[in-house]
């Protein structure tokens, strides 16, 4: 068991508050990803849960037991660090068994558990090596092995893949995900990479400037972003945003071209930010006029940059493109895919968008 509850977590360094009251409920066994730009407080939050930082206010509970006054060793939480933090003077086996040794388990027991973990992570052949004799991916696995031998209530990961090259990153991503499906241990995973968040998470927590911006499943965040920030952060290439005004039930661009009916009720004349994803627009006989500025085929898909009077719009399509750069075209937003956000608060105007 390992459900995690955060209530109004605040953290200040001196006079500077970096976490402004975080609330979060994580169910037992859930894979939760904290995602957000660098400096938004992800690591601070994770380290607070670990007990490596003392919080200034709020309450952290695991399984309904308040733990924020406990030292790390009493919390039954394991953490994988960004730089792995393997003990350089210990072999892989010693690294993995270190926590068990501290817990005064018998050597026999330690050997058994280390072996079992090594089996899972395919580390059997490396048990007698030292960390300096391992590749980046192997070190990563040892760091995970060190966490899993303890069978803790919660795993914490702080950007564990950021030191690996792109290909290895994709591979380790699936390995971590598989490991979670096998062990079902509650996991909180920090990353600044939205692709990692989308592919791995049961639940994504988007953070910004020490606040939680939105919490939801990957698809929820993708389909119903609660703010311009989330809409722009999740998804690649990013959502297109243009200024628009309400016109009856529909939205028009500032140059009076019809965008379509948004996912919210907007008053006539109300200024909003309209948003639509690159894959949610298509070329049409009529619609918004634009010039083709750039064509970038990637094989399966083609990415077009369309230049309207005021903006550059990104569009992706699986259709073969017969146009060439400079052609005059028209595009339209697919029915039901038009988002709209308050132009002041940048929160979504759709139902539920004001929550949080």
């Amino acid at each position, binding site marked *: 068991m390992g459900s995690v509850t955060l209530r109004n977590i605040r953290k200040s360094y001196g006079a500077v508050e970096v976490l402004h009251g975080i609330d979060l409920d994580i169910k037992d066994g859930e894979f939760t990803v904290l995602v957000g730009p660098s400096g938004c407080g992800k690591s601070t939050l994770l380290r607070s849960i*670990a*007990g*490596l930082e003392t919080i200034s206010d709020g309450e952290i509970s695991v399984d309904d037991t308040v733990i924020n006054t406990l*030292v*790390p*060793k009493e919390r039954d*939480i*394991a*953490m994988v*660090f*960004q*730089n792995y*933090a393997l*003990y*350089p*003077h210990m072999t892989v086996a010693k690294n993995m068994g*270190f*926590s068990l040794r*501290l*817990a005064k388990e018998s050597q026999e027991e330690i050997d058994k558990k280390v072996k079992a973990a090594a089996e899972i992570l395919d580390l059997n052949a490396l048990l007698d090596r030292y960390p300096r004799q391992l590749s980046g991916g192997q070190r990563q696995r040892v760091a995970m092995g*060190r966490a899993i031998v*303890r069978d803790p209530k919660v795993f914490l990961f702080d950007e564990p893949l950021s030191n690996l090259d792109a290909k290895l990153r994709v591979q380790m991503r699936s390995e971590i995900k598989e490991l979670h499906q096998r062990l079902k241990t509650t996991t909180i995973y920090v990353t600044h990479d939205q692709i990692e968040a989308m592919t791995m998470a049961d639940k994504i927590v988007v953070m910004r400037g020490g606040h939680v911006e939105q919490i939801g499943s990957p698809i929820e965040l993708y389909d119903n972003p609660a703010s311009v920030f989330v809409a722009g952060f999740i998804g690649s290439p990013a959502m297109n945003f243009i200024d628009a005004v309400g016109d009856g039930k529909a939205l028009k661009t500032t140059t009076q071209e019809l965008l379509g009916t948004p996912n919210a009720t907007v008053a006539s004349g109300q200024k909003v930010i309209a948003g639509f994803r690159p894959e949610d627009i298509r070329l049409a006989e009529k619609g918004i006029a634009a010039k083709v500025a750039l064509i970038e085929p990637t094989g399966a898909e083609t990415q077009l940059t369309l230049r309207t009077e005021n903006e550059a719009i990104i569009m992706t399509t699986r259709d073969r493109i017969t146009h060439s750069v400079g052609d005059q075209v028209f595009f339209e937003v697919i029915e039901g895919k038009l988002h709209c956000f308050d132009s002041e608060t940048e929160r979504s105007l759709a139902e539920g968008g004001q929550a949080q």
Partner: protein
Amino acid sequence: MNEQPRTLNWIMLGLIGLVISIYVLFPVFWLFLASFKTQPELAQLPISFWPEAPTLEAYKALFSPTHQKGQLLDWPQLIGNSFFIAVSSTIIVLIFGTLAGYAFARLNFPGRDLILGGLLISRMFQGAALLLPTYRLMSMLGLQDSLIGLVLLYSAFGLPFATWIIASSLREIPRELEESAMMDGASRLQSMVMVVLPLATPALITAAMWHFVGAWSEFAFASILLESNEHKTVTIGLASFVELFTLEFQYVGAAATIVALPIMLIFLFGQRYFTRGLLAGAVKG
């Protein structure tokens, strides 16, 4: 490309090094050779370089109480005293230097960097200026003519530098290692002993060597603080020998060799760590 000038540079550097080595080491070597000579050979002219009939007489005399000239110079006792002082104060310096170094490297407290810098400055006041005040202080504390007094004094002198070396090297050890140990269930002390200190071994060895050598060869303070014969150290014994045996130089040579031996052994076996430890401190201090 400019391979030739570079080799030439190396040869030049090597030659200069050789000349300096000979210049520095020749008297030492000559003294060493003298310890194997006989009295007549030392007195004869022209002076011989290599001993004509090498003998261990001088060493035997050193370790048997027959040889005195009215003054009791018991070399086994002198060596024992010096070892006691050097080893005890090295242990004290290591223990307190490690604790203090850890605090300077890891804990946040007001004035931390200022105090660490101040520690180094305190080293600049050592020497003759401190002799009299120290003597008075030790007398007031009833610690003159006591080995313990000297142990405490040397520890106090040695701590700043040891602390500084250890703190600099601990700063290079990533914090995450300790945090990781704490997540693994270690207390702060356990993470220090089981993770941090093993990684700081070069610095610890450097600090220990540095201090041991300093304590072993210290003369000025020992000579004014120690009075009774059974408390004297090797450096005092050596100084007396120089006065007593102006002609019987083989004894001085033998004594000097004995005094230098531990230091040479230490450098021989510890050199690797010594340069590493000092460098670690030098890169980021």
